[in-house]
């Protein structure tokens, strides 16, 4: 186990470097001269040259990348082109909001998804199962940005129960969290159901029945534990979709989180802010993946034998 954790930690290093490389290369992919873009349109030739010199844009690519990583290690993500503030500071104010949103969303994903999935699996092909699965199918098919607008229209515009947008009170959290968590909940519910149905057909469940165990003991003790193992991985992947989804949901509900920061920065071509935002979101995801893998391994010791 310790070896596994150490190995897994070691794997993070190349992945993290890879992520920084990709983010760094984004700058290089920009058609045209990055110095001109960074200087902003209409800047004088001297300003452009000065910027090129300052940012080391005339050095070879690998040197630039080395410097970029070195800066990152010192907590320097560059400065916003728009307000000249350090990118890190901007992220520091935005990130907590996104984390709060993500926390409530994943809670919805896990709790709703598991409950619906288990109920469906206990009574497969029943009316309740069918209705849950139809809802789940809708959940994975509705675009989150549209679902957000729909919810906003119903609960804020028509019923006026909840605020339209912003991030000031607990009431503000409800709609964005549901919007963001709904897709994940649908996926988790579907996965839990199919995993449970799969497990119920296993030989050891037949053994449990042959022993005369009570129905609920078979479900709770023998089936559920095994069925949840693949669900762990799915939940882990949902974190990723969720972090990506903040971009859309924060835009719909005008939440000033990391996602909205990235979108705004792309619109204004504020490349260093985009880089910083994408990098931070990805690194968070890398760490979450690590945690999920370790959890998976703890629950499933049979892995890797044979």
């Amino acid at each position, binding site marked *: 186990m310790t070896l596994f954790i150490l190995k897994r930690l070691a*794997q993070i290093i*190349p*992945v*993290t470097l*890879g*992520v920084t*490389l*990709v*983010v760094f290369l*984004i*700058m290089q*992919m*920009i*058609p045209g001269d990055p110095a001109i873009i960074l200087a902003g349109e209409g800047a004088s030739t001297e300003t452009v040259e000065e910027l090129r010199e300052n940012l080391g844009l005339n050095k070879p690519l690998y040197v630039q990348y080395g410097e970029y990583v070195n800066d990152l290690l010192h907590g320097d993500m560059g400065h916003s082109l728009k307000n000249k503030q350090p990118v890190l500071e901007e992220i520091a104010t935005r990130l907590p909001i996104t984390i709060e949103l993500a926390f409530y969303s994943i809670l919805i994903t896990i709790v709703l998804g598991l409950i619906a999935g288990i109920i469906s699996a206990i009574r497969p092909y029943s009316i309740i199962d069918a209705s849950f699965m139809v809802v789940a*199918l*809708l959940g*994975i*098919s*509705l*675009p*989150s*940005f*549209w679902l957000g*607008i*729909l919810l*906003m*229209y119903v609960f804020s*515009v028509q019923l006026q129960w909840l605020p339209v947008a912003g991030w000031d009170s607990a009431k503000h959290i409800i709609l964005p969290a549901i919007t963001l968590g709904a897709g994940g909940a649908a996926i988790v519910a579907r996965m839990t159901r199919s995993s449970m149905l799969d497990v119920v057909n296993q030989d050891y469940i037949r053994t449990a029945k042959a022993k005369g165990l009570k129905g609920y003991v078979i479900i709770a003790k023998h089936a559920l534990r095994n069925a949840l193992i693949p669900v762990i991985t799915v939940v882990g992947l949902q*974190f*990723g*979709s*969720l*972090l*990506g*989804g903040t*971009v*859309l949901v924060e*835009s*719909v509900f005008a939440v000033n989180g990391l996602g909205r920061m*990235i*979108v705004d*920065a*792309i*619109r204004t*071509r504020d*490349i260093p802010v*985009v*880089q910083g935002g*994408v990098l931070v*979101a*990805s690194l*968070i*995801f*890398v760490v979450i*993946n690590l945690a999920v893998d370790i959890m998976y391994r703890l629950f499933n010791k049979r892995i890797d034998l044979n």
Partner: protein
Amino acid sequence: MEKITLTVDHSILTNARKAARKKNRARFMNKMKKNKAAVAGGIIIALYLLIFLIGPLLAPYDPYDVQLEQKLQAPSLEHLMGTDDKGRDIFSRILYGSRLSIGVGFSAVLFGGTIGTILGLIAGYYGKWIDSIISRILDIMLAFPGILLALAIVSALGPSLINVTIAVGFFSIPMFARIVRGSTMEVKKLEYIDAVKTLGANDFTILAKHVFPNILSPIIVQASMRLATAILSAAGLSFLGLGAQPPSPEWGAMLSSGRDFIFTAPYMAMFPGIMISILVLGFNLFGDGLRDALDPRMKN
């Protein structure tokens, strides 16, 4: 050994061949027919493809024709889905937009699916260091959460529908590659692969004739599911203003401009949203059904 002379009526063989083919097709269709979800999904997709092909011919108005005096009209017989803030007919715009929204999805999946499949086949079949390298690259691509990688690519290439296609296709590469790699590794272990190896077949023959046809099912299922995601992502990027630019009738972009009028003209956002949702639903249903029909493990 004695030479055996064999006389066989060749019409028997030809007939047997025809019958075999027919039987096989019938078997697959039978399975699909029993699967109502797949049929429903298939019908939805077929309808959309019809709109894709002939939609613009049916459009009653020019989708770009600004008629400010007609703006924000509620749905009526004249304008089935109403008009937008510039007085353009939403129904006509939806029909024209189908080419963009559906086209982007298909192109992106074709792009990502081809590259992903090739990478997955190579990694899964050869294993060892080739697999390590490809897998590490895929790991890095998968380390970007959700559509953030596509977003980052668009931020560099600049907002446009083509760039969105490239970006969405790019981020579906690892999804295909992973599935294909896993399936290839499974099929590679089967004895019939060893048998053709023993017959002296080369790697290309083995991959093309013996591995690929047998992993086609998971690839098709994945493609159907990926189409759903790709359409959602592309619409999402356009919604954020990073894809199709106004006045393009791309559905995500239409939805985006409709959101500002949610108090006064909710139908502006409703119709494009419904169109996207039903299309995505169709692909999800189809993919689900296909998986049940093709995947032997899912059989009861």
